Each structure stands twice: as structure tokens, then as C-alpha cells.
């Protein structure tokens, strides 16, 4: 399937900012399940977008500009061809041994509630893959998706679980924290999700867990499915702080920051290849 993505992030500062510096992780890369047909990044103020690669292999752009800056728009735009791999992610960039994906970060602390939740979900499982599916369903059924919650707000797993509600994008961290607690290497993916029949398209976040013999498999607990053709991976990390599409520093007289994020995803004209 071909997916066209246009992802605009607008910033408005009141009063104007003295200077601005940001890092962006919004450039997808190829793996067997996705091929980047075209991609471009743009910021509509005078600055240089400096590309780099972070240690997880994500494409990272940094830019800085001197003020006064009253506002600007970051645009990431392109087309990605996706293939149904039944959730298995292969041929991507792997930089770390799996041990690192067992780490508990501030976002994925397994507190008492989370530990109990994980153990209950895994009860009676028949192996790692089964555990992960049980866990995905438990998270999906146990946490109500709040359609009004902002996808860009990053909330720790334990808080989401305690509240039993959160944005679709934050649910993935609950899955990751629980699965790590159960000893399964798990990481967080930030990317895009093309509308299914019941859900709206947009920026999204989910998890990938490592199953011996199969490799990394995506689990989208918000939608209770393993990614097929509708997901586009843009960044991988230990938690959503590490994969955040935009990181903004809180300084420089930026009294008020408004962020509006509205990725538009559309399916391209189907191009039959058979």
C-alpha cells in the first residue's frame, strides 16, 4: 500500500521567543515492511536543518534560530510504500543488543499496579508470543482511549494504567513497561497510523517486542492488532521521550507555546504491481 503523509507542526509564541532550538525525529527509514518513496523536511524560518543519526539509527534533525521568533511551521511530507509482514519487523537498523530494551526508564517504571497487571495478563500463557498477545488485549481492554487527549503529551506508563485512560499514543508505553517487567525486550515506536474503519489517522506510537526465533514484532495495543500495512515507523527508542518527533527546550522567554499537530495520511492511488 502506498501512504501519503503530510505532517505539519505549528508553533506560536506569545511573546516572541528570543531564540529557538529543537531536535526532530520525523524521518522514516526503510525496512522490509516499508520503503520510503519520497520524503522531505521543511521549517519555514531562516535556519539550517542539520541531519544526524542518533545511536538507535533514527534520523535526527537539529535546527536553531535567533529571534524574535513568533511562530513557525515544521513540515514533514512524503510517500511510503508498506508491505504486510504480519507485524514482523526485519531489515531495519539494529544497533543494540536486546538487553537494552529490558531497561526500566522513567516513562516505563513497573510500579506495583503495573507489575500486578502484567502478571495477571500473562497468567496461563503458552509461550512468549502468546504472552504478548494476551498482554496486548489486556491493555486494549483495560485502558479506555481518550480521543481528546493529545498524542504529543507524553505520560508515564504507570500513570496511564492507574487512570485507566489515555491517548492512543500513550497506551504503547503501558504495554512496553509490562512486557519488559515480564522479561521480554520491548521498545517504543513513534510513527503514523493510517485510518482503519473505526479510527482516525494520525501520529501514533506503539511497541515492538522481541520473540526468540521470530525477531521484532509490532504490537499496537491501542488498536489491538499487530501492524500490517497501515503503520509507518518513524523512530525507535526506549520510551516516548527518546522517540518524540519534536523536542523543544523550555527556555528563551517562550512564555506561551502552542503546538498543533495534525498529520494527514491518505492512501495513494493504488498502483497494481501484480
Amino acid at each position, binding site marked *: 500500500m502506498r501512504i501519503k503523509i503530510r505532517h505539519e507542526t505549528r508553533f506560536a509564541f506569545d511573546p516572541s521567543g528570543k531564540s529557538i532550538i529543537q531536535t526532530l525525529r520525523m524521518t522514516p527509514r526503510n525496512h522490509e515492511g516499508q520503503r520510503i518513496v519520497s520524503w522531505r523536511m521543511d521549517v519555514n524560518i531562516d535556519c539550517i536543518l542539520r541531519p*544526524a543519526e542518533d*545511536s538507535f539509527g533514527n534520523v535526527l534533525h537539529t535546527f536553531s534560530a535567533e529571534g524574535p521568533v513568533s511562530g513557525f511551521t515544521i513540515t514533514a511530507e512524503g510517500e511510503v510504500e508498506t508491505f504486510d509482514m504480519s507485524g514482523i519487523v526485519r531489515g531495519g537498523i539494529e544497533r543494540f543488543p536486546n538487553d*537494552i530494551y529490558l531497561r526500566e526508564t522513567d516513562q516505563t517504571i513497573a510500579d506495583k499496579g503495573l507489575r500486578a497487571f502484567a502478571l495477571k495478563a500473562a497468567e496461563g500463557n503458552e509461550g512468549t508470543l502468546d504472552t504478548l498477545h494476551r498482554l496486548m488485549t489486556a491493555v486494549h481492554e483495560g485502558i479506555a482511549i481518550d480521543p481528546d487527549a493529545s498524542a504529543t503529551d507524553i505520560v508515564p506508563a504507570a500513570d496511564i494504567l492507574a487512570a485507566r485512560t489515555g491517548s492512543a499514543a500513550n497506551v504503547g508505553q503501558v504495554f512496553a513497561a509490562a512486557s519488559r517487567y515480564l522479561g521480554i525486550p520491548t521498545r517504543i515506536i513513534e510513527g503514523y497510523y493510517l485510518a482503519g474503519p473505526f479510527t482516525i489517522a494520525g501520529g501514533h506510537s506503539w511497541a515492538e517486542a522481541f520473540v526468540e526465533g521470530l525477531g521484532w514484532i509490532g504490537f499496537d495495543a491501542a488498536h489491538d492488532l499487530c501492524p500490517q500495512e497501515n503503520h509507518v515507523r518513524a523512530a525507535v527508542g526506549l520510551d516516548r521521550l*527518546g522517540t518524540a518527533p519534536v523536542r523543544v527546550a*523550555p527556555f528563551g522567554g517562550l512564555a506561551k507555546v502552542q503546538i498543533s499537530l495534525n498529520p494527514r495520511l491518505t492512501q495513494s492511488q493504488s498502483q497494481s504491481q501484480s
Partner: protein
Amino acid sequence: MATGHFFDEMTQPDGLPRKVYERVNRWLASAPPELLASRRSQAELMFRRIGITFNVYGDKDASERLIPFDIIPRVLGRSEWARLEAGLIQRVKVLNMFLADIYGAGEVIKAGIIPADIVYRNPHFRPEMAGVRVPHDIYVHISGIDIVRVDDHDFYVLEDNARTPSGVSYMLENREVMMRLVPELFAEHRVAPVENYPDALLAKLKSVAPRSAGGEPVTVLLTPGQFNSAYYEHSFLADKLGVELVEGSDLLVRDNVVYMRTTQGPQRVDVIYRRIDDDFLDPLAFRPDSALGVPGLMSAYLAGNVTLANAVGTGIADDKAVYTYMPEIIKFYLGEEPLLKNVPTWRCREPAALKYVLDHLPELVVKEVNGSGGYGMLVGPHATKAEIASFAEKLVHDPAGFIAQPTLSLSTCPASFDTGIGGRHVDLRPFVLSGADGVRVIPGGLTRVALKEGSLVVNSSQGGGTKDTWVIDDETGAA
């Protein structure tokens, strides 16, 4: 290790002084108590005037304190020092090799010397640094290795400090005060100087400047600010080094280059001696709520446009769990036997060790793997039954989070009190500098002394004091 009696660094069991202490012993024997008393009060007055203080965390009533100072120097002979120095150089060389390795090819893990999970699951292993080469492969530019003695031969490493070790200002101030206080003792000894520490440090910092820096790299000292417990030291060192003392808000990053705001406009910065923890360095890379750091600093660092000393991610090298593997790590990299011994340590993550530790809690010192400064530890012999029980619970819940060591019979040195002279337990933190041209140890260091009789806790936050540490060249007593 010796148990039962303690090794006293001045007096031998037969009552005679050890050779290096002969003249100090003579001086103490001949000086009337009133003289020592007046020296003690003079010393306190001098420290008050200098204003050298520290803050105790978790103690609201005493936000700033003077560290008690003892006027009797701690003396090491040149030959003892040479052995210690060689061991320190070996140790710090390996700390740097270990860091270059685990952030690179990971050979030490592949060879099975250290388990992968201890490294990769450790919060102090910074994934951001993986695959990054730092100038000259030096990660730990400044380290303080905590050393204890239990007899007149062996030195034991109690702890490696490879993040932002503090205490060097005390080493320098203690010497300055002592030279004014007891000039007659200095006249009798050839004491190796410590005053050149700032020059040596600055040279090491400049030696690791990025290529872009040119002939005179601009160096700054980055402090978290005046609320930090070591702020005095930061300002003191910046002054001695002749570099600017800056806070995060004094620096800015533009197009991956770091600048310092000055009255003449932005000035490019090449080397940052940072006394801020990794977590707070850059809100764009680490804790997003950090107001102490510099946004964009990591991007500039990873682009190779600025050197941070110490490098990011050195905390993994002085981790208490990694510490237990240091003897094997040294053999792995150098093919040499470690010159300094490790204190025998039980890794509670190993079931057999955990069982032993739980059975022997009243006689052990149990430390949290990620704790420091004497917080979060159990000193078995001094703990109440209730404390031991609650600690045992913590241990069972998270065995990998703890290590245990025997209660060490730390050596004692004479200390001077109103009630007379008495032996008190001491440790030593020598400061080791690494740069492009190798490793250097400043002869001496900071001796910390547990001033409470019988106490083994030397941390300044827990009632410890300090002493001037002398390395003397003429140890045969021929003066």
C-alpha cells in the same frame, strides 16, 4: 584482611613510630597541648575566613557547614606512594579503555568478562554515546579513586568516582592552611606539592579540545549553580584555573556550536569542564524538565564541536556492580595483574551470595548499586535490629540493586582533639587526571577522617572531617 586490631599509620604495635611518621611523632610529643589547641582554633578561623563550606542534602537546619579539619597531617612515604600511583594509573587507564569498549565494539562483554545486562540495563549506560568516539578515547578526564588501607602494604580501592568527583578544593585549601599553620613541620619534611593541580588540570582539558579549537581552546566550568552542594568548589576551581564559571543559561548552542554569552557578544567554547550530571546536561536529549543544562549541547557534542569533561556516560564505569568485575576487566585489557586490590564484594544478584549476605547482615556493609555519599547503605555492626530487618526486605525485593562488603578494618591516623591525641579511621581520595598525553596523579589527595571515635563512616555528609595528605620524599628520616 586484618581484623581485630587496626593498622595505625603512625604507631606500630610495639609503640614505636613508623619511619615516615618519626618527625611528626617527635613534633606531637614535644608540642604542649596549648600549642595544638591554638593551632586548632587558628585552623578553624582560617577556614571560616576562606568560607569553604558544603551543603548537606536532607538537612534543612544546616544548609551550609564547615567541614572539620584535623591539624595532624597524614603522611605517605615516596615508595608507598609510588606503588599507589602505579596502581591508580593502571586503574584509570582501564576505566577509559572499558568505556571506549562498551560504547564501541563491546569486546569485554563478548568475551564474557562482564554480563551484558549489567552494562546495557544499567541506567548509567547512555545509549546516546554508543558508536561515538570522544577525543583521544579519553572519557574520564578527572577521577577520584577512593582508597583504604588495612595494613602497611596493600591499598584497596573502595570506589571509583568517574562522574564529577568533588573534594579537590579541600586538598588545595588544606595544604594552604597547613603551610601557614605549621611551617616548622614543613621545614623538616620535603613534601610533594599539590599546588600545581589547577595547571595540570587545565593542560589536560586543553589537550582534549576538538580539532576546531586552534591554539588556545576556550575552556569553561559549567556549574548547576549556587544551590549545589559543591558550588564553593566550582567557583574556587574556576578561579584557580583562570576560566569562566558559567551556568547553563550563560551558554547557547547555534548550529551545533556552543557559545558563551559575553559582554562582547557570543564567544565560541571548545572545552566544558562540567559539574552537572548527565541527566541535566541537555533538556533536548535527557530530562526535558532540566533548567540547569544547555539545550542542544548533546548535538554539538556528538557533532564533535565541543569536548565535555568528563564525557557523557562515564557513570557506568564507577557503578558499584561494575566495580566488582574490575580485577577481571584490568586483566582483560592489559594482561596485567591489578596493582590495587578490590575490597571483597558479594554480588547480591548471585543467589549464593545473596543467601550469605542475608545470613550475615549484622557484620556486613550493604550498598545500593546506584547510591552514593553514604546514602542508602547499611552498616551492619552499627545498625539496629529493625534497620537490618527493613533492609533485608529491600534486598530480597531487588537483589541486583545491592552489593555487600565486609566491614573493613580501616587504618587509623592520629587526630588532635581537646581531649588529646587519638587514632581515627581514614580513607584517601587521590585525584587522577587523564588527557591526550597520558595519566597523571597529583601526589597526595584528600584524606577523609571519621572524627567520631570508632566510627568507620568518613563521608563529610555523615560527620567526617579532612586532613592534609603529605607525600614525603625523604622517608628515611635523614633530615
